[in-house]
């Protein structure tokens, strides 16, 4: 018995998730739901990276996009007021449905994860050694430039969002 059919099926499911999620981000008027669906799109994209054999990139995708960028965007949604009314209580009415869905997903996952014995890691460590070698040899200069860019972006974001202290501004005006 071969498992050749698994990869196309998983690919089809992930591509449906990616495309539907992306379309929902563009079409939905609820900003909070759009941001969460963007996280879902990024998660499906991480699955595609795993399917392509780029596990390290998938891990970065989950860490940076699903973790950091989605949280930043949600903070941006929180700090700005939108014209589409008070829809902040997005999950209030759906609590029983949410409980059923979480139970239906979490219980099988927990049973499966406790019944599996973990596979031994692949010899050679996946795609990480090749990636790391490239980054620190051929692309060492772009790597350093990228770190300077991150520092500049950090300082720039702090300067842009810093609230002007009224006392300080008054002192500057006096001078």
């Amino acid at each position, binding site marked *: 018995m071969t498992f050749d059919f698994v990869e196309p099926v998983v*690919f089809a499911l992930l591509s449906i998730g990616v495309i539907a999620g992306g379309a929902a*981000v563009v079409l939905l008027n609820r900003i909070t739901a759009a941001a969460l669906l963007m996280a879902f799109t990024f998660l499906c994209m991480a699955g595609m990276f795993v399917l*392509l054999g780029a596990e390290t990139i998938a891990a970065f995708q989950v860490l940076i996009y699903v973790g950091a960028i989605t949280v930043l965007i949600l903070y941006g949604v929180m700090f700005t007021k939108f014209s589409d009314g008070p829809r902040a209580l997005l999950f209030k009415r759906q609590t029983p449905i949410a409980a059923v869905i979480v139970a239906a997903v979490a219980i099988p996952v927990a049973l499966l994860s406790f019944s599996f014995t973990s596979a031994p890691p692949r010899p050679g460590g996946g795609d990480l050694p090749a990636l790391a*070698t*490239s980054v620190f040899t051929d692309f060492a200069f772009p790597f350093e430039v990228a770190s300077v860019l991150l520092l500049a972006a950090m300082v720039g974001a702090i300067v842009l969002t810093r609230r002007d202290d009224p006392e300080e501004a008054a002192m500057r005006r006096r001078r």
Partner: protein
Amino acid sequence: MTVPVGAYIAVSAVLFFTGCAGVLIRRNAVVILMCVELMLNAANLALVAFSRKYGSIDERGSVFVVFVFVIAAAEVAVGLGIILSAYRNRPVVNVDEIHQMKG
């Protein structure tokens, strides 16, 4: 890989043009930022797919994906900073109504 590389490129193209349409038709600045992220992610998928299919063993395409991650993080931080500081001056996030930065 049993899935052809063209399928990954097709998904990438669809997602890219979805994001592109979002940038063009939406008026909310935060949504525009999300759509830009979608476009960057679509480009990442194309890079990884081509790197897997045609690349040598040293993963050059994936290295560029790492740099795209850095650019995306920096872009979101600075973009949200700009949106928030513009919002503080005048509480609108509709890009049609933000005229102050026009020259």
